[in-house]
């Protein structure tokens, strides 16, 4: 199972539809302060099933919806889609009929969010399990947000234990 693309629309500062190709090896993302780089990481974490608004640097989950700028009005819907190449057919049984999987999550202001896999409604639980089976997910060790390395350095020994638990 490989991640192949990430599509955002109305998500945080990415108000216009945006597609990030994810290919093999090392993909660098650059740009000035405040332009939206870390928002991309949060889009990935969100579509994989993040349930805490605080982890998304917001007060409530609606904070992920484009809130407007000096020239554009706020939106009411945000959507993120993750394209997965499943040609090695290693996804869990219930999702394993296809070579390509598209996991999407869509939120509407004041109405909560829902998931779809290849267009079919899915439960958050099933989406989270899909990623957990591949050793990844919203809280995976491999998603290192900005400031996370500093937090590990300053953490008390007991707070570093979850790094082991994740690896177990």
């Amino acid at each position: 199972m490989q991640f192949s693309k990430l599509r955002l629309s109305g998500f945080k500062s990415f108000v216009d539809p945006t597609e990030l190709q994810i290919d093999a090896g090392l993909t660098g993302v650059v740009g000035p302060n405040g332009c939206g780089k870390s928002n991309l990481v949060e889009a990935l974490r969100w579509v994989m099933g993040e349930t805490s608004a605080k982890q998304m640097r917001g007060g409530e989950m609606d904070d992920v919806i484009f809130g407007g700028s000096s020239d554009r009005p706020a939106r009411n819907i945000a959507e993120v889609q993750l394209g997965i190449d499943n040609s090695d057919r290693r996804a869990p049984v219930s999702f394993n009929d296809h070579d390509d999987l598209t996991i999407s999550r869509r939120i509407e202001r004041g109405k909560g969010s829902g998931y779809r896999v290849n267009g079919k409604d899915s439960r958050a639980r099933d989406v989270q399990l899909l990623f957990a089976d591949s050793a990844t997910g919203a809280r995976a060790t491999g998603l290192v947000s900005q400031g996370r390395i500093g937090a590990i350095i300053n953490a008390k020994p007991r707070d570093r234990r979850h790094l082991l638990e994740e690896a177990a």
Partner: protein
Amino acid sequence: GRQRLVVAFEAVNEHFQKLFSKLFGGGDAHLSLTEEDDPLDAGLEIFASPPGKKMQVMSLLSGGEQALTAIALVFAAFLTNPAPICVLDEVDAPLDDTNVDRFCSLLSEIAKLTGTRFLIITHHRMTMARMDRLFGVTMAERGVSQLVSVDLRGAEQLRDAG
């Protein structure tokens, strides 16, 4: 419970020692579980000695040495259970160019070893130069992010544009 934790500890510790000496170009490091009444409450202590220095607790190292040690630990946990994707958001910020160089070499090595795809957010010119491809994020229109594919020259301009 306890048994799984000890097995995971041993696996992570073994990776950690190898990764530490790759990232520092030598030296020695190891993890230890703090003694607690309830083993499931144990904490993780980190001991390290960069090349030519004495072994000490991580808190006595310099800012950059601590960051590099913590990166070794995260990669050690990651390699114990590799995933198809790894995202690193400005983890190279406190590193000097020599350490950035070793950090990038390790990334390439892991990508080849596990097939993991990496997304690396960085401001370091040297890290940009070691990527297979680069995307730039701009806010040409205030408050609105746009993604563009760039080459190294373009990335440096973007970095300076602000």
